[in-house]
């Protein structure tokens, strides 16, 4: 089996170690064309078409395959992903280089390769007897790889000649943007083109040209040759500088308000100079938001103060800088010694964090121009220059653009068009935009991911029942909101012979279907959570699992992970047991249905008795939890009633809470706590837990002040004290006051986070007043629960472990991603609500509503409209209008506008309108109607404000 291979060695001197690796060359690697007589091997997996039916190319009329080099793959992946481009040979050499250079591109190319309809074939040229090349004396690794690629291209062309008798044999076309490499290839008789040449030759598909990344070759520049920016220093210089402390490394954060200003958050623990302010184009030096940069501190004499000016980049194509300098001077106002901050300039980029950006095209004034500026939706991203012929079609559309580079003589970065999302304001488009902008992975699941799904029809097999208890005889039911398709929990309760109660919480056994390490698992881990938007759900796991096999629907056999307690009638736990199980839910109820069963005296079936038992225990559990200091907080939750035909929201409704809601919640909490204890006991170093840190006392200031104003004494030194204080809030003439206080208290809370038990020693969950907590009950929609399931399964011996599960650093990284995804999901959700609110008011027109003051600011008040759960800011300073007299009292806090004073929780009346002056950033605007303040409020007022988007950010307590 080995004799057919020649044996060669590859020596790599890394460090000072001489490492010798074997490198086998084979003669059984096929060319990838299905049915190739020469290779006579049955092709498994993706293969090239024997007669490629490619798009018409004016350059190569023959049927042909493409063979791109590494840089083409790296930079032109957008093109390669286009369905028109098919039959591409990806060399192993190229793939390895891509893998080392860019993980995201590598993943994308692998997805493309696994798509059978694309006919991409990976040729293992490094192990092929005829295409392996050895590094020669005086040749560097890059040159060797280039040569290896050419050798493979040559081999392919000769191979194709051999297997096809007629003259019209398929050609293999080498695509490279490296002019020297191309010349060498042509010399060696390989048909070679640059990517641009080839794409432009596809006469039938001119739209592809726009997707080409424009890579500015030096000398190929049509731009003005004037150098605008200082040169970036090479990475080695930067690293040395950072080591010696001359430069500081940090994350670049552009300002939303002012395109000429940014801050750099310096990495490291140094308390001093944590934040460095950068002003002016030259100092920003082509850094883009989120890049990792190296900055040099300027001497103190050049330090500046953060400006309060709002500046938007409105320039056209021009590269003139004089204009900018003028603007930069306007920043240098308000020179007050105290306000000066450490200032610096960017000397080099350590790592770009470019992603494709959403935004809109600002068409060039020149009609024939193909170069246009693109304005990203995110104001922190600079405008990008792209080249396109479809400017008129793209106008008014939301599009995606990727940055290719930012040469030092260009005012704007260069980029290329990637995708048209659709018309602005369109619901689908806007949803796509907010998903992209919040970095929510929402592409359809790739083939590779789907390949790990169980084959349908699925049923429980003998094998599945190993290590599993059969609980199908139990009377289990689920209680969820209406129309819920991803049911991850079900419950049961029955009386035991000894008089005690057995209560079971059964959670979908998602970890049975998602095995560690495979593509499905990786994708789920990446997504981290299911994202619920107003009328769309972005699943974490494919639908087959989320809505079918894992969903604990009624009257079908499903696999579950059960947590079973034996309790006495006082809800004291006597015994806790975990087991993998098979269940058969007897009913899927909504909260309302369950409530009805419990309440109606006529129903006495098994399900109802079970529910009553659960309800009784839940009440005791809840009481006990509250006595221990758990907080009951509130946030205004609303649902949109959506028109069934237009899908436009027609009405809003605040969520109703029933006893059954808290019944289910109570048992979920109990299960989570029980599981947290168990996994921490078993894996004290690498249990995945969830904690909720106690907020610093300063967070409560607003709350205490507000209470003082209402003559209430608020204690916030412990969760218990806070809960008691909240309970005491009562006002017969103001019933909503208690809710308002709870809403305000919610805003004081910290974010709850996942963490690995070996990396932290504070486990306390403040909001739930539990010493330890985790997430176990929603594995269909949260990845953290899947890990917890795996840990628990190992703890009870039902499943095997794997290396990453017991690696606390890997686990900590995972937690980091999950926390990020959860935060982003929350933001996306809010953005979705905001968009739908806008739609709602667009249809509804101008309305006047009652509202309560939540916060008082220096020049505005933040109000909440309970009817819509809508929060907004009422500004008292407006552009082009006389400013009213404002007096802000920080102590109270209160704001006096002319003669009217506003306090927290004051009742006001506001007018709600939709401001569409900026197509890309529509917003809800609120203005005061009552109490009337002359010159400020009034129903006649209709001038457009240029206010900022109402502050939407709020920390919401999630258990």
């Amino acid at each position, binding site marked *: *089996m*080995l004799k057919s*291979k020649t*044996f060669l*060695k590859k020596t790599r001197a890394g460090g000072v*170690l*001489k*490492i*010798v*690796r*074997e*490198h*086998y*060359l*084979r003669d059984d690697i096929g060319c990838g064309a299905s049915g190739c007589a020469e290779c006579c091997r049955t092709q498994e*997996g993706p293969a090239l078409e024997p007669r490629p039916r490619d798009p018409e190319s004016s350059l190569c009329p023959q049927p042909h395959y493409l063979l791109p080099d590494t840089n083409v793959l790296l930079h032109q992946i957008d093109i390669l992903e286009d369905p028109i481009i098919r039959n591409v040979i990806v060399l*192993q050499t190229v793939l390895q280089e891509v*893998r*080392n250079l860019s*993980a995201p591109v*590598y993943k994308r190319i*692998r997805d493309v*390769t*696994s798509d059978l309809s694309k006919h991409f074939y*990976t040729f*293992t040229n*490094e*192990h092929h007897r005829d295409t392996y090349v050895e590094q020669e004396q005086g040749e560097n690794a890059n040159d060797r790889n280039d040569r290896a690629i050419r050798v493979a291209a040559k081999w392919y062309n000769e191979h194709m000649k051999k297997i096809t008798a007629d003259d019209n044999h398929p050609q293999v076309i080498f695509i490279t943007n490296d002019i020297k490499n191309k010349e060498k290839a042509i010399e060696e008789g390989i048909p070679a083109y640059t990517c641009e040449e080839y794409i432009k030759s596809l006469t039938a598909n001119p739209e592809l040209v726009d997707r080409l990344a424009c890579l500015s070759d030096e000398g190929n520049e049509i731009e003005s040759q004037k150098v605008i920016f200082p040169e970036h220093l090479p990475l080695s210089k930067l690293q040395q500088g950072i080591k010696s402390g001359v430069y500081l490394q940090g994350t670049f954060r552009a300002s939303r308000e002012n395109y000429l200003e940014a801050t750099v958050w310096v990495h490291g623990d140094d308390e001093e100079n944590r934040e460095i302010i950068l002003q002016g184009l030259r100092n920003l030096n082509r850094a883009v938001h989120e890049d990792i940069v190296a900055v040099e501190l300027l001497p103190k004499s050049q330090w500046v103060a953060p400006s309060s000016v709002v500046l938007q980049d409105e320039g056209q194509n021009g590269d003139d800088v004089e204009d900018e300098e003028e603007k930069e001077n306007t920043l240098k106002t308000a020179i007050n010694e105290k306000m000066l901050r450490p200032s610096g300039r960017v000397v080099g980029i350590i790592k770009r964090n470019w992603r494709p950006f959403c935004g809109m095209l600002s068409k060039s004034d020149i009609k024939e121009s193909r170069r246009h500026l693109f304005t990203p939706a995110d104001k922190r991203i600079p405008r990008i220059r792209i080249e396109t012929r479809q400017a008129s079609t793209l106008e008014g559309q939301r599009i995606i653009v990727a940055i290719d580079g930012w040469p030092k003589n260009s005012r704007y970065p260069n980029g290329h068009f990637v995708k048209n999302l659709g018309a602005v304001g369109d619901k689908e488009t806007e949803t796509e935009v907010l998903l992209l902008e919040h970095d929510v992975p929402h592409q359809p699941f790739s083939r590779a991911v789907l390949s790990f799904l169980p084959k349908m029809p699925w049923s429980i097999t003998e094998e599945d029942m190993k290590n599993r208890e059969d609980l199908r005889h139990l009377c289990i039911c689920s209680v969820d909101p209406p129309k819920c398709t991803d049911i991850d929990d079900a419950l049961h309760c029955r009386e035991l012979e000894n008089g005690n109660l057995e209560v079971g919480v059964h959670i979908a056994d998602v970890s049975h279907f998602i095995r560690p*390490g*495979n593509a499905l698992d990786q994708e789920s881990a990446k997504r981290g959570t299911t994202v619920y938007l107003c009328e769309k759900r972005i699943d974490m796991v494919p639908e087959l699992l989320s809505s079918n096999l894992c969903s604990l629907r009624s009257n079908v056999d499903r696999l579950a992970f059960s947590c079973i307690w034996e309790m006495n009638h006082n809800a004291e736990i006597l015994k806790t047991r975990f087991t993998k199980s098979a269940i058969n839910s007897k009913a899927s109820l909504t909260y309302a249905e369950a409530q009805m069963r419990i309440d109606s005296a006529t129903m006495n079936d098994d399900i109802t008795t079970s529910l009553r038992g659960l309800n009784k225990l839940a009440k005791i559990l809840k009481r006990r939890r509250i006595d221990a200091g758990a907080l009951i907080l509130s946030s205004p939750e609303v649902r949109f009633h959506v028109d069934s035909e237009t899908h436009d929201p027609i009405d809003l409704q605040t969520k109703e809470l029933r006893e059954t809601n808290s019944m289910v919640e109570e048992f979920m909490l109990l299960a989570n706590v029980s599981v947290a204890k168990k996994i921490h006991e078993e894996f004290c170093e690498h249990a995945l837990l969830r904690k909720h840190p106690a907020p610093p006392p300063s967070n409560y200031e607003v709350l205490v002040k507000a209470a003082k104003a209402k003559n209430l004494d608020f204690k916030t030194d412990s969760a218990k004290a806070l809960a008691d204080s909240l309970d005491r809030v009562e006002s017969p003439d103001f019933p909503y006051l208690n809710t308002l206080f709870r809403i305000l208290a919610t805003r004081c809370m910290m974010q709850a986070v996942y963490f690995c038990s070996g990396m932290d020693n504070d486990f306390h969950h403040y909001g739930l007043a539990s010493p330890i907590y985790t997430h176990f009950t929603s594995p269909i929609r949260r990845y953290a629960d899947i890990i917890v399931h795996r840990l628990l399964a190992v703890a009870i011996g039902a*499943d*095997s*472990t*794997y*290396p990453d599960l017991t690696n606390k650093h890997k686990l900590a990284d995972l937690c980091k991603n999950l926390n990020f995804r959860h935060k982003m999901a929350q933001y996306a959700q809010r953005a979705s609500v905001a968009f739908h609110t806008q739609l709602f008011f667009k249809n509804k027109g101008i309305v006047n509503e009652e509202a309560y003051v939540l916060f008082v600011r220096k020049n505005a008040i933040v109000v909440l409209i309970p009817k819509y759960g809508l929060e907004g800011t009422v500004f008292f300073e407006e552009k082009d209008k006389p400013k009213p007299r404002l007096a802000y009292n920080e102590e109270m806090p209160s704001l006096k506008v002319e003669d009217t004073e506003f306090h927290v929780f004051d009742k006001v009346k506001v007018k709600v309108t939709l401001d569409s002056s900026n197509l890309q950033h529509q917003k809800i605007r609120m203005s005061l109607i009552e109490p009337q303040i002359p010159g400020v409020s009034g129903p006649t007022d209709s001038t457009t404000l240029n206010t900022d988007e109402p502050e939407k950010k709020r920390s919401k307590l999630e258990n």
Partner: protein
Amino acid sequence: MAGLELLSDQGYRVDGRRAGELRKIQARMGVFAQADGSAYIEQGNTKALAVVYGPHEMRGSRSRALPDRALVNCQYSMATFSTGERKRRPHGDRKACEMGLQLRQTFEAAILTQLYPRSQIDIYVQVLQADGGNYAACVNAATLAVLDAGIPMRDFVCACSAGFVDGTALADLSHVEEAAGGPQVALALLPASGQLALLEMDARLHEDHLQQVLEAASQAARDVHALLDRVVRQHVREAALLLGD
């Protein structure tokens, strides 16, 4: 820099082998004249020498002699230059002692020790170059050396390692594959009976996968057997020719 991809989507390992393929094996018996038996084996870049002295009378303390069978005495050592980073001592460390002990157990199971009561058989193995599967190479070399010494054995002892990556069992791990840290199984097989003379597993591996990995390692060991058998026959043929003169 991304970590190493142990098994590509196309099914090739880092060095170009497929999952079940062995490295190139070359071996020779009778390398040294003074020892009673000796052999040398190359499994890819792993190179090992084995020398057998005996059976002879007990050396040193006679109290160690066994009344009913021969004592098998093994020493495992690695040349100081055999590994990537230079070793400080060739033998005497814990790992080497453990290997020696394992070798001894393996060969006590294979050699017909009851034929030589109160005597001693020394097996010394020396790794000249280490590139993964050191134990397996040593066992295979020692088998040939014992055969060369003419000591009767129940069967060949053929050893091979196997690992588990992405749901696939890999046979005969190289050093890079071992260093990646996945589970690995070392196994010594008596091919005729299919009995295992030694089985060792490092790292965690789920029971369900064990069968697959064991199967891969056993198959690899059987392949090794075929090769060793060929080497022995070749050696005997040459020796017979020389004797015939």
